[in-house]
């Protein structure tokens, strides 16, 4: 063990913000211990693999037919040897389990005073809600303060994964799950969806912004009441991004998963059942709250239900934004 520790330390050293050869940068409280355990298992495995490989190659050389025309008499069974090579690895395995257990319990036990952020996963974007009512599609967290993310899904199973923090947790519809961390490095870090969730799973990515507490608070204050401060269409554009509408609806005429909104307001839309409807304020409202009741012909009824997920104010500015998207 005393021999291993310096080797572990050498493997762990990382050049600045870039991350090392093995891992992304260590940007949370969990990362140093996580990486240490990884390298511990790596060294144990490497020693065993090397021992197996070297002895196999040595035997292949020494007992090759050209050097050993006949097998030498040797025992074909030894209970002592079998027990030795079962019990010694068993101790190492027990220690690995213990390390994993300790680390896991730390991951699963958020401090009582953690700053709480609600996260919502939906096809195919993230939304984060802060204690002051602010909402964002990217995750903003204060530096050096424990943060607990409480997560729910609006549709299928997603998984929130921040490699630089070494955290991941599935986001399951119908229940809340959580994870926690203390960000220890200022900067921007990648956030992925790690559980396959359908068509645009691989673009369900976001960014974590870690800022010193003062800057973070200023951001949260601004984000909480932009609807009252900005012109409605401009605020709507922000809600359009924040709520993830942008993942399926374009504003430039191109068709993604759902219809584009370019120049559509006030026009007549043909529905899947053959009837028609005028795209007015009420149609937009209904399409947000009961999305699959009046689906435009040629599209699948796959939109996530936003009932209870958007406020009246947000719907109002969204309608203004959609009106503003013209030729």
């Amino acid at each position, binding site marked *: 063990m005393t021999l291993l520790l310096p080797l572990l330390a050498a493997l762990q050293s990382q050049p600045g913000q870039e991350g090392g050869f093995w891992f992304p940068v260590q940007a949370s409280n969990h990362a140093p211990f996580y990486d240490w355990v990884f390298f511990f298992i790596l060294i144990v495995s490497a020693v065993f693999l090397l021992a197996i490989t070297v*002895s196999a190659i040595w035997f292949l050389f020494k*007992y090759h037919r050209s050097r*050993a025309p006949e097998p030498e008499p040797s025992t074909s069974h030894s209970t002592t040897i*079998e027990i030795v090579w079962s019990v010694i690895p068993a101790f190492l395995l027990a220690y690995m389990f213990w390390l994993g257990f300790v*680390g896991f319990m*730390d991951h699963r036990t958020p401090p009582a005073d953690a700053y709480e952020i609600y996260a919502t996963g939906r096809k195919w974007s993230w939304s984060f809600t802060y204690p002051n009512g602010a909402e964002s599609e990217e995750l903003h967290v204060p530096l050096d303060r424990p943060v607990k993310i409480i997560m729910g899904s609006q549709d299928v199973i997603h998984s929130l994964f921040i490699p630089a923090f070494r955290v991941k947790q*599935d986001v399951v519809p119908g229940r809340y799950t959580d994870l926690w961390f203390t960000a220890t490095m200022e900067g921007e870090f990648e956030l992925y969806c790690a*559980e396959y969730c359908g068509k645009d799973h*691989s673009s369900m990515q976001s960014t974590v912004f870690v800022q010193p507490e003062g800057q973070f608070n200023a951001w949260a204050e601004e984000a909480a009441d932009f609807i009252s401060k900005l012109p409605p269409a401009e605020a709507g554009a922000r809600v359009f991004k924040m709520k993830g509408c942008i993942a399926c609806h374009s504003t430039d005429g191109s068709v993604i998963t759902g219809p584009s909104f370019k120049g559509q307001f006030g026009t007549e839309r043909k529905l899947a059942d053959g009837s028609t409807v005028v795209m007015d304020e009420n149609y937009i409202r209904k399409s947000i709250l009961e999305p699959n009741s009046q689906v435009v012909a040629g599209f699948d009824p796959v939109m996530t239900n936003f009932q209870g997920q958007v406020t009246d104010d947000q719907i109002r500015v969204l309608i203004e934004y959609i009106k503003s998207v013209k030729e």
Partner: protein
Amino acid sequence: MYDQSQGVNYLNCSRGFWSWFGTLDHKRLGLMYMWSVMGAMLIGGVFAMVMRLELFAPGQQFVDAEAFNQLFTLHGAIMVFLVIIPGVPAALGNFALPLMLGAKDVAFPKLNRLSYHLWVVGALFFVGVLLTTGLDTGWTFYAPYSTLHSQTAVVWATFGAFFLGFSSIFTGINFIATIHKMRPPGMTWFKLPLFCWGLYATAIMQILATPVLGITLLLVGVERMLGVGIFNPALGGDPVLFQHLFWFYSHPAVYIMVLPPLGIISELIATYSRKHIFGYRFIAMSSVAIALVGFIVWGHHMFVSGQSALTSIVFSAITFFVAIPSAIKVFNWVATLYKGSIVMKAPMIYALSVIWLFGIGGMTGLWLTTLQQDIHLHDTYFVVAHFHYVLVSGAVFSMFAAAYYWLPKWSGVMPNKLLGELHFWSSLISVNLLFFPMHFVGLAGMPRRYADYALQFADYNFWISIGGFWFGLSQLLFLAVCVLCAMKKGEKAPARSWEGAEGLEWEVPSPAPFHTYDTPPVVK
């Protein structure tokens, strides 16, 4: 005893489509399984190569996200349900098991034929999926995506898997009965060839675990078609329940896929070292131990699923127990080489490479079952690397080893030496180029099932794709070896085709006669 003077054997004793498709002969069924599985493998492999083509560089070049999702789903579903699960037990086991036991056939030949026909039905359902809307749920069919959101042919696929499940169950029943009742006089349990021990352990799992998969997939169909709430929380169901049911089968399924291949490795290393296997009883019992413990480790697929911390802790601890019998096998293989007289024939070089490759696949499992380590690694390419090392360079390489070993018995000619060795070296280098960098790209944080990726993953993916194309094309060499044997091009094989091969299957001529062992041999 055997009249080979007219050159009559199981291959040419009768002719015509029905003499094959309707046959009750385990050797013909084994051979048909073999070609069918290779056909499915070709399709699954082409899907993988198209995926690697798309992932060659970041951005979207050849297929869009929707098509990509279909590719990885069908690659997984075909390789698991149509290739690896039937590949070793049904294809290799059918041919080898009765011969190794000196038995006339399996215990229930008609059930055996039904297994094959059900495989064909299951495969036709998958063809149906391919010809209609495809499938985009991942081979894991996770709810509620599969039950509510997917717009593809989920029900077709679940029915296909359902039929394949019964095919697998029937093979399991057959093999258990055969091993219990049809061993020749003198062959006690601890004289049973280790490949048969592997098949026996696998058969237990096929019988006990596969019905749960059938039930689970039916429930998916019920929720999808009838709207009964089982997994979808909007209907009062629980999506995590699906994962418990699914992995209750699909984790033992991993051992269904690897235990018989590891049994083959035990046979081959002893044969080509011209020694008795070291630690026979421990290897035999390790297969049974893995099979039994394998039933109670499924929760290690779900450490970040939302299951309780206590559940995860218990599953992690039990999973570590699987490492010990796995390690016992590897240590005993190496010990068998000691003081032997080793010949490096094609089956042996494959078997030796499996010691090392399966070792890597097993060791990466240590990280994944260490609770805290799994948090970062779960659902990244590290997992993809882990299970491909176990299933491709472990199970599939063992299948290659077995194929080279038994090809003389199947075809009557020795496999082409040059092509076989070329196939080995080409596959060995490319399989590592293909799967080794996946560990690093996973550690760096690239999630699996991604149609596109961030720029920092580009270099690794470039080399992974090169490895993928190379590995895929290398398999044409294997096809060439098989075709040459089928065309009888090559050195004629004697009854005992390999020096040092001691199993009962080598007592009968090559290719095997139609009727083998009318009276059981006596084992000393």
